């Protein structure tokens, strides 16, 4: 059975006709061409498919579009505003928090939800918040640093990046700490 739906995604209203059992992940990727949302298991185990619904992270592979009809959905394509990258996107690039980049969209959206709630999270808060998002490349440490750098910049506690991505930009500390 197919249903006709209107979804509000990244500030736009989008009409879709899709089978009722099709997941939000599938509708985003296949019906709406929003392939920035990734999948690693399609069973709710890895966090890769995270999107925001009214600012709260949800696993799009476990969500049915009918459940989120009247809510505001944010995907990775909607994180940058008017061509301006979100501070998290800048910090992730700068510090190498995205390696293969596959976990990155989900990670960024989950991190945004955290910073929207808590602009100055302690490292343990970031670790606990993101614990459902797996990453096989980074060992998580650069992600923690990037979230902290983005948060500090948003608070005005850290200098803004310098432009060409070169050395004068953020100095990567040789000592890096995770959750202990």
């Amino acid at each position, binding site marked *: 059975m197919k249903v006709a739906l209107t979804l509000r995604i990244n500030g736009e209203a989008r009409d879709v006709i899709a089978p009722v059992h099709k997941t939000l992940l599938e509708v985003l990727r*296949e019906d709406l061409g*929003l*392939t*920035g*949302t*990734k*999948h*690693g*298991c*399609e*069973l709710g*185990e*890895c966090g*890769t498919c995270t999107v925001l619904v009214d600012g709260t992270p949800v696993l799009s592979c476990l969500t049915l579009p009918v459940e989120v009809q009247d809510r505001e959905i944010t*995907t*990775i*394509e909607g*994180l*940058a505003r008017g061509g301006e*990258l979100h501070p*998290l*996107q800048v910090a*992730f*690039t*700068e*510090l*190498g928090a*995205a*390696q*293969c*980049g*596959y976990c*990155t969209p989900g990670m960024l959206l989950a991190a945004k939800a955290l910073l929207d709630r808590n602009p100055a999270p302690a490292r343990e808060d970031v*670790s606990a918040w*993101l*614990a*459902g*998002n*797996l*990453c*096989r*490349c*980074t*060992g*998580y*440490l*650069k992600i923690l640093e990037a979230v902290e750098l983005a948060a500090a910049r948003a608070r005005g506690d850290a200098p803004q990046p310098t432009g*060409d*991505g*070169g*050395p004068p*930009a953020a*100095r*990567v500390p*040789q*000592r*890096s700490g*995770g*959750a*202990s």
Partner: protein
Amino acid sequence: MTAGGGPRFIGRPWARVDGPGKTTGEARYADDLVLPRMLYGKLLRSHLPHARIVRLDTSRARALPGVHAVITGRDLPVRFGIMPTSQDEEALCLEKVRYVGDPIAAVAALDEETAERACEAIEVEYEPLAPVMSIEEAVAETSVRVQEHGDGPVPNVHKNVSLEFGDVAQGFAQADHIREDVFFFQGNTHLPMEQHSAVAQYDAAGRLTLWTSSQTPHYVHRALAKVLGLPMSRIRVIATPVGGGFGGKSDPFSHELCAAKLAVATGRPVKITLTREEVFYAHRGRHPVLMWLRTGVRRDGRITACHIKTFLDGGAYGSYGIATTYYTGALQTVTYKIPAYKFEGTRLWTNKPPCGPKRGHGTPQPRFAIEAQMDKLAEDLGLDPVAIRLANATEPFTRTVNHLRITSNGLRECIERVAEASGFRAKHRRLPFGRGVGLAVSTYLSGAGLPIYWNDMPHSEVQIRVDRGGGVLVSCGAIDIGQGSDSVLAGIVAEVLGLAPSEIGLVTADTDLTPIDLGSYSSRVTFMAGNAALEAARKMRELLVAAASAHLEVEPDGLVVGDHRIHAAAQPERGVTFPEAAALAEARFGTLVTVGSYRPPRLAGPYKGSGVGPSPAYSFSAAVVEVAVDPATGEVRPQRVWIAHDIGRAINETLVIGQIEGSVYMALGEALMEEQVFRKGLHKIPSMLEYKSPTFLEMPPVETILVVTDDPEGPFGAKEAGQGPLLPVIPAVANAVYDAVGVRIDEVPITPDKVLAALDQAARGGVGRVGPRRVPPFRFRDPIKVEPPAGWSVPWRRGLPVAGGAPGLPDDLPTGTAPSDARPRDREAPEEP
């Protein structure tokens, strides 16, 4: 001409060039591709570990509406495999299935659901065969045969190797103390976040294009040509950004061949994306290895002889297994001066998914064994773990007893600095019960010295084109799997041309558009593609400088290239911008294209099997792990990791540290929780929830120390970072557990139940050890006896001045493309890979 004011990027931290695409959702991975009229493919896989296919009927599947094609083994009968000597895989099994997950048929349909229903509609009748499920069974079995090919002396032996270097009997006779230990390293898998995916298109002109998440598009290209019977010139393979590889996307896979065949059959594009469960069965991950290790030492800790036996559980197909087998014996001698060394190894066939290369390829298992044993030897002799390693550490610019050539070598500095940073000496044996520290060292290749199939051509090639607007386009077959190869290429070219890496255009991993790179495996890309890029960039700089020189009337030697300009060193205002220089050069020379290529020096020793192990340079690492062990639960919690890595020189410090942290993470997963285990041929835990891997909460802080040794043949002195740092961490955990609670877990992973069992045993007056007791009786070949190279442990040259981490570059930038006295004279390559 000189570079102006020292390097702007090399050796420093900078932003990776693919960051913007990967943080905005713009990067297009294989499964993101959608082509007009595209069909979806699915594979039907065996649910039995070992069976003959008696009947295969696809007629019901073909009749389903929406099904466009169904193919079976008859449609793709040509066998393939990554190693020339192991052409044992069928895209779809013809007569027999050898593991749960072995593909039998493939379907292309309008959508995935229809394709799935079609798979269910295929009727298969099997005659089950007795499965061979373990190393012990494979060694003991005399009638059931998993594979048709093998190396004897019993049916399920894929490879049987025995090599002896120097006089091992005499070495043991000279020892003051000898230990024998047995270890087991359980298999584990890569678990890339991205599921494998491939899209194939066969156009009206008869050309096949395959987009695929592959670390080795060139080898996929060769396999497609062979299996589909098309010339390579009619096939184009494009590797899409790889969402995690770690070795797991280095083989040509059935789904790639089937997508291609289905595209040919239907005339429509076909996509096949594996499910997560299929990824677990596709595997090619870490081999389970059972090891017996005997080492003799003098009272001062110096090794007199070493003898290792390894038994690899290979699974059902060859994959990289021959190389893996040799790797279990190859690199022990690169960290320690071992004057007499014997290696016996065998890879066995079992009815499980084939094992292959995972980060460290065949070397983490014996590294675990030798580093755990070094700790035991130190304790036996009353030495500390640092001292025994320093007593045996190899020197720069020496050879090993098994004919490997070592160039730059920062092992000693790695050991000393990591011991210092961690306070190892103050902590070891002095922390309260339940807390402990462990030390281990390791080495890894900066690229395999030999290609997978024998040929004389370069391993890496780069082409640079500069257009009249000053745009720079770098083309190279290298594929970025997250390790940062795009950034390495852009960084090297940018540095030489005085630009920023983010300004360099890149075309990569497209067999139509890019010159060759053999692939992102064996930690080879920075070293090899980096050297090719350096050569091409220097040639381009010469053209630009020559044109600028004529225009400015300044000798080339008096010009500086830097920060988007070429100008007189003495008068900075007398110069041209980069685009001006490009226009002048194009007017003078025509199309501005330069190329560079890299082929490693011929380093293989004079014996069969010497092709595995040589590398133009080795990285070295040392790690200390501090753990807390809960004696009530057996849980091991890493508290902090210190790791020193001899990188040669970092091309990009941010990326190097990222590779090291990722390696530490993956090692902790392998050390403590990850296992690829089977019950009656079924994977016990084929899901991301049950296959435990570390999350944010399990990741301890990591302190990284980069040791700079400026390798004379690496691009800007660089060596590898992607695999080596994984190796020492696993045994360092094991050694730390012993330091914490006094029990030896000689088996990886070190799970709470094993720790509890050992503690319980110790409490009841036992030795407090969990691990295998013996290896099965097995007849290895008579050893090939090889004389060590003359004067192997004596340095043949002194290193270049070590820059000690200072940001200045030596005047003559080291490069692998310039002749170097570090190269021995050419030798004929051996027949082994």
